[in-house]
């Protein structure tokens, strides 16, 4: 045996490239870990982190292993040794990927978005006060207060956003801790059950069928052990495990079982369990190393984060440019620089929607909650919207599209194919069961089967019962239990006297039973196996309960049925039986399975039965929905192309009338090369083909075919596919469950991990977890995501509108010298007071039309905030609001004695503290404080007017295209809660807190509340007209310029 040391080097480059160099002989092996070396690799040399895995434990004998790890196979480690090793190597668990430190997250909230603008505002306030103070020590503290208020606003919204984020992250972490794993270990010569994370290298562990392997284990004694390695290597077939060293590679050799894989079965007692020695734990396991690769894939920004950034840039750009323009205007109008700075602060505060980012966070978390109810658990809040903009879904087959269990799909007997019900509960089996052949066939199915229900599940529905046995046998057991009732009872009545289990050389399984008829002393031999092998052993065939000789035509009928069932990707089994004559095989006959002292030919062929992992019943509908929503669904599976294609066809990923290049070739009887590739809508690509493709070819494939199935792919090839899709400017959602999927999950715009089948590593890498592993849940997620995008548009439009009404006063104040119509603090009361609940209420708005009937938004063209939205909010509704508010303002001043003509250019005298006898239009004289109080009344009036018109704004924002009457004014109750909150907050501010001087509110005369109402009505009417024209003239100039 070659003792050459084998070295695996797992290289990991900083951002995206994953490469595994196999230094052994370059032979094609271990599909799972093999991967792509992208040309950019060299650019990342510096970031490369090199780890070397040096594993040769599989080549050592038991004694060498004992010596190496200082343990004893019979007695195990001593507790002291174990404790020491545990302290040395740490617990046996995967280190979760390093998240951003909390403090960084917090600081990000503090300086992200508009915060930086507000900080600038606050600092300018303090600077202004500093200058004032150095000139005049008695100057008022107003600017200091304003600065503090601004700082407080930033800190509060920051803390709030941080809290929201943290809350949604907590949901996730609690979810992860649900099931602590246990391991059965031998220590101090005793069997103990300990938490799996307490395992150390050298521990002797026992593994039963159904257990998760608790660490990387070198098997010492086992029989008939099978493991599911799909999460490591992507092989979906169960892999046999034994104690022998079979391969140089630790990934291929049969005597190592990997951490977190599932042990499917171990031969029945007396052995019952597999015993093994722990050879590596935690992050040093193979899986740990793969998982750490995922952390090298950088998180890209979510689409909504990009949109919000874009929006922040627009608003900040407007704020800063308007601020600077008016700073220059103010300075050139000979205003004091200090005053100009204060104007600048006012303009910034007026322009920045302080409450909006917090609102967006709340809106997203509301949707996240709603989605969690529909089994989509969102880890990253922003991912809520990402699903909505998804244009390609790369979905797994097993478990996501299918039920992840073999199920009997078809039967063939009496020269006829019968369809069995494959829905989740098998409720209505409608095929004809009157034939005597069926009676024989069902007997074989029931008897020639070693699978058993685990005891103690009497109350569990049949389809949900846990079974000990492999997938096919489980399917047959459940099928016969549904068809015939109590299988165990039937088996008891037909006592088994001998059996030959299935093995890959025989390709059949056989058992011999006594019959349940006490008068019939014959033995019944039942056999199932690969159809062609079964047919070879038969000389007769049962038709309608009668044995007939097996002639050529019957054999052809058999082949046609076999090919037909196999062609649709189903696993086909043949069944036959033979009654042994009593004279040769009396009741006392002793059967010996080793010498086979009984006939194994001239059986009577009874029927065929085919099985498939059927699609979930909700999936076809969901795929259709995706298709009409313009989302391309790509299947990526490790399964056979035929099975994959069959499932793809049955769920509609490949639609009924579309063909692959191969189909066309077959239909036209042409060689594949001569077929025009453009004609084929669908494509089935295997991993081998994919491996030979250049990125350009892949791009071409992805662009030219709308229906694609990738079969026989390794999970790592998913990464290539995802990158290919992303090159098409698509927003890609990827589903995955294995550890090996985690790089692709990270790379995807939205990674979706399976909650039931998913490994922790996959869940860590994903942005979203599907609690029910169901593809249909993704579709509801898409729907929610699209809705939230639409509603965020509405929220932003609503919030931006009043910014003009808040900004205009400052501009007019600077240019026309009116007493200030609205104060900075008052603006904050709108932005963070009256407007908050209404803008959240828009998140509850129902969709205007079927959002699942339009194309996904284009990442770069369909922006959250587009020019029509900004223009319509700022220059149409915003301006109308400003006018309405100014009417109220002028009314208040005029009715108190200051006519509009008088207050024009009155600012300098108005604000002069030494002028205490300022004459109004009627000859009365006002002290400074009396004017100030009037100014506050003006603020309150302006505030109330904006609030009243924001009610109209809120109502019109319910829809973007439809009339409010179509949408229903009262359907969204939360909007009315929002309106009520606006009014109540305004009432409290004016009448409740009107006496608190610092807030600058006064008790407003009731009639001033209604001055802006006509303007509010006008806003509503104007918007209805806008929507009417949009509906009447779709695609027109009006539509292009007015629809946001």
């Amino acid at each position, binding site marked *: 045996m070659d003792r050459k040391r084998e070295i695996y080097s797992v290289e990991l480059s900083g951002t995206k490239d994953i490469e595994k160099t196999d230094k052994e002989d370059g032979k094609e092996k271990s599909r799972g870990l093999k991967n792509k070396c992208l040309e950019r690799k060299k650019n990342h040399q510096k970031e490369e982190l090199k780890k070397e895995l040096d594993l040769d434990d599989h080549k050592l004998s038991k004694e060498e292993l004992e010596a190496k790890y200082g343990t004893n196979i019979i007695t195990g480690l001593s507790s002291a040794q174990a404790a020491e090793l545990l302290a040395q190597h740490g617990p046996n668990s995967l280190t979760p990927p390093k998240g951003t430190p909390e403090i960084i997250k917090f600081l990000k909230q503090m300086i992200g978005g508009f915060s930086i603008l507000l900080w600038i505002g606050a600092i300018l306030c303090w600077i202004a006060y500093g200058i004032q103070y150095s000139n005049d020590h008695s100057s008022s503290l107003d600017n200091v207060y304003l600065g503090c208020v601004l700082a407080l606003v930033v800190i509060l919204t920051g803390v709030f956003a941080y809290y929201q984020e943290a809350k949604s992250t907590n949901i996730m972490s609690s979810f992860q801790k649900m099931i602590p794993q246990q391991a059965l270990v031998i220590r101090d010569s005793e069997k103990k059950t300990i938490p799996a994370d307490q395992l150390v290298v050298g521990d002797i562990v026992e593994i039963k069928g159904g257990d998760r392997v608790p660490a990387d284990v070198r098997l010492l004694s086992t029989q008939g052990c099978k493991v599911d390695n799909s999460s490591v290597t992507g092989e979906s077939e169960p892999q046999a495990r034994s104690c022998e060293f079979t391969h140089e590679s630790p990934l291929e050799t049969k005597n190592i079982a990997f951490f977190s894989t599932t042990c499917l079965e171990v031969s029945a007692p007396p052995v019952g369990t597999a015993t093994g020695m722990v050879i590596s734990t935690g992050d040093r396991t193979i899986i740990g190393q793969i998982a750490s690769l995922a952390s090298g894939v950088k998180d890209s920004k979510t689409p909504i984060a990009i949109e919000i950034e874009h929006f922040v840039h627009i608003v900040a750009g407007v704020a800063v440019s308007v601020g600077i323009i008016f700073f220059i205007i103010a300075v050139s109008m000979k205003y004091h620089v200090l005053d100009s700075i204060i104007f600048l602060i006012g303009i910034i505060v007026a322009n920045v929607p302080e409450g909006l980012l917090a609102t967006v966070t709340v809106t997203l978390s509301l949707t996240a909650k709603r989605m969690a109810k529909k089994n989509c658990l969102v880890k990253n809040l922003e991912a809520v919207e990402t699903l909505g903009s998804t244009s390609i879904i790369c979905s797994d087959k097993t478990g996501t599209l299918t039920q992840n269990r073999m199920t009997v799909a078809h039967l063939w007997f009496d020269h006829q194919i019968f369809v069995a019900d494959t829905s989740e509960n098998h409720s209505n089996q409608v095929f004809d069961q009157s034939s005597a052949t069926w009676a024989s066939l069902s007997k074989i199915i029931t008897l020639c089967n070693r699978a058993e229900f685990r005891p103690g599940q009497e109350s569990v529905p049949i389809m949900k019962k846990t079974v000990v046995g492999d997938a096919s046998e489980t399917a047959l057991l459940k099928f016969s239990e549904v068809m015939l009732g109590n299988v165990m009872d039937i088996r008891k009545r037909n006592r088994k006297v001998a059996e030959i289990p299935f093995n890959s050389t025989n390709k059949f399984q056989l058992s011999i039973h006594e019959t349940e008829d006490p008068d019939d002393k014959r033995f019944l031999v039942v056999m199932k196996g690969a159809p062609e092998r079964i047919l070879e052993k038969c000389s007769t065939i049962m038709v309608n309960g009668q044995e007939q000789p097996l002639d050529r035509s019957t054999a052809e009928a058999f082949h046609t049925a076999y090919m037909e069932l196999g062609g649709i990707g189903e696993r086909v089994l043949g069944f036959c039986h033979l009654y042994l004559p009593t004279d040769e095989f009396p009741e006392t006959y002793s059967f010996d399975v080793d010498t086979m002292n009984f006939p194994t030919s001239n059986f009577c062929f009874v029927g065929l039965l085919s099985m498939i992992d059927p699609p979930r019943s909700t999936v076809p509908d969901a795929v259709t929905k995706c298709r009409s929503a313009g989302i391309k669904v790509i299947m990526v599976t490790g399964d056979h192309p035929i099975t994959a294609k069959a499932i793809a066809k049955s769920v509609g990923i490949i639609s009924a009338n579309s063909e692959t290049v191969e189909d066309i070739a077959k239909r036209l009887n042409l060689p594949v090369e001569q077929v025009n590739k453009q004609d084929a809508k669908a494509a089935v690509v295997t991993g081998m083909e994919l491996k030979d493709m250049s990125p350009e070819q892949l791009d071409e494939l992805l662009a030219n075919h709308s229906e694609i199935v990738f079969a026989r792919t390794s999970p790592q090839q998913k990464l290539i596919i995802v990158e290919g899709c992303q090159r098409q400017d698509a927003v890609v959602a990827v589903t995955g469950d294995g550890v090996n999927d985690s790089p692709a999950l990270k790379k995807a715009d939205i990674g979706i991990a399976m909650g039931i089948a998913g490994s922790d590593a996959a869940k860590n890498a994903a942005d979203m977890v599907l609690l029910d592993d169901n593809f249909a849940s993704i579709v509801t997620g898409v729907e929610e995501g699209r809705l939230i995008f639409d509603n965020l548009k509405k929220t932003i439009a609503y919030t931006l509108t009043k910014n003009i009404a808040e900004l205009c006063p400052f501009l007019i104040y600077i240019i026309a010298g009116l007493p200030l119509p609205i104060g900075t603090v008052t603006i904050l009361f709108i932005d963070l007071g009256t407007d908050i609940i209404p803008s959240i209420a828009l998140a509850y708005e129902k969709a205007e039309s079927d959002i699942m009937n339009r194309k996904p938004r284009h990442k770069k063209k369909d922006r959250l905030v587009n020019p029509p939205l900004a223009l319509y909010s700022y220059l149409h509704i915003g301006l109308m609001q400003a*006018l309405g508010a100014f009417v109220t303002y002028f009314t208040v001043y005029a009715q108190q004695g200051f006519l509009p003509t008088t207050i024009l250019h009155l600012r300098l005298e108005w604000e002069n503290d030494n002028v205490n006898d300022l004459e*109004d239009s009627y000859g*009365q004289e006002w002290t400074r404080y*009396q004017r100030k109080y009037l100014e506050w009344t003006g603020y309150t009036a302006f505030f109330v007017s904006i609030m009243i018109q924001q009610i109209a704004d809120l109502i019109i924002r319910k829809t973007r295209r439809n009339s409010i009457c179509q949408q229903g004014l009262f359907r969204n109750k939360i909007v009315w809660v929002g309106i009520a909150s606006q009014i109540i907050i305004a009432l409290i501010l004016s009448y409740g807190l009107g006496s608190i001087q610092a807030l600058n509110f006064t008790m407003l005369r009731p009639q001033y509340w209604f001055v802006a109402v006509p303007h509010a009505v006008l806003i509503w009417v104007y918007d209805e007209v806008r929507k009417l024209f949009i509906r009447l003239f779709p695609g027109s100039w009006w539509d292009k310029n007015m629809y946001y």
Partner: protein
Amino acid sequence: MTKTDKKSFNQSLAEWKLFIYNRTTGEFLGRTAKSWGLILLFYLVFYGFLAALFSFTMWAMLQTLNDEVPKYRDQIPSPGLMVFPKPVSALDFSFSLSDSESYQGYIDDLKKFLKPYGLEEQKNLTDCTSGTFFEQKGPEYTACQFPLALLEACSGVDDPTFGYQEGKPCILVKMNRIIGLKPQGEPRIECISKSESTAFLSTYPSNGTIDLKYFPYYGKKLHGSYLQPLVAVQVSFGSDGDVKEVMVECKIDGSPNLKTQDDRDKFLGRVAFKITMHA
């Protein structure tokens, strides 16, 4: 990825150029001439409509107002006190005896302020009965005379420098006009010197009385010739030191409905000022 995403300077320049004027589509700043025309026309019409609407609402609002009396007078229930002349900054009179330029401004201001109080100007005014309100029913409203002689030494008749030249400056104290205000009791303005100086204050008319006949005021339009009652304060310093300084506080006394104490409004019914006189 970053490499391909970053556009070269030339590329972005070309993009900008294309945005400013796209030869193939004839788009200027992203719109064709027709589109620009339509959008400008739209905004012209839309804003024209808004402007008309705003003007109309303002006009309608102004129609509801009364020319003579403001609709509400609740925000000035009680008058403020103010002094005259008004120093440049704060209420701080500062001048130098030896430099006539330093107080010439005050004198000019006072002269200008007292011009409507001249004999010639008061010719047509009514000589009303002292001690009662001079209530009128209209339609013609007339004002009561306020003879300058009441201000005695500060009237500017005998001493055209209002005492500044002699080092005995005069400051006029007046009560803000409020339409319809009727002080109760016998309002007078009382001034006291706050600092511990030897300054002596004399008020004219004696006792600082404000006669009730000057109330109520009927507003600028009806009561155009109205003369505000004045009280003059004359400060005379003792003979010590080069710099003479005094804080004077005046407030309304004797009228319960005129407020003189308000924490926020330092000028409601009271006024404080400082006089600094250099040698």
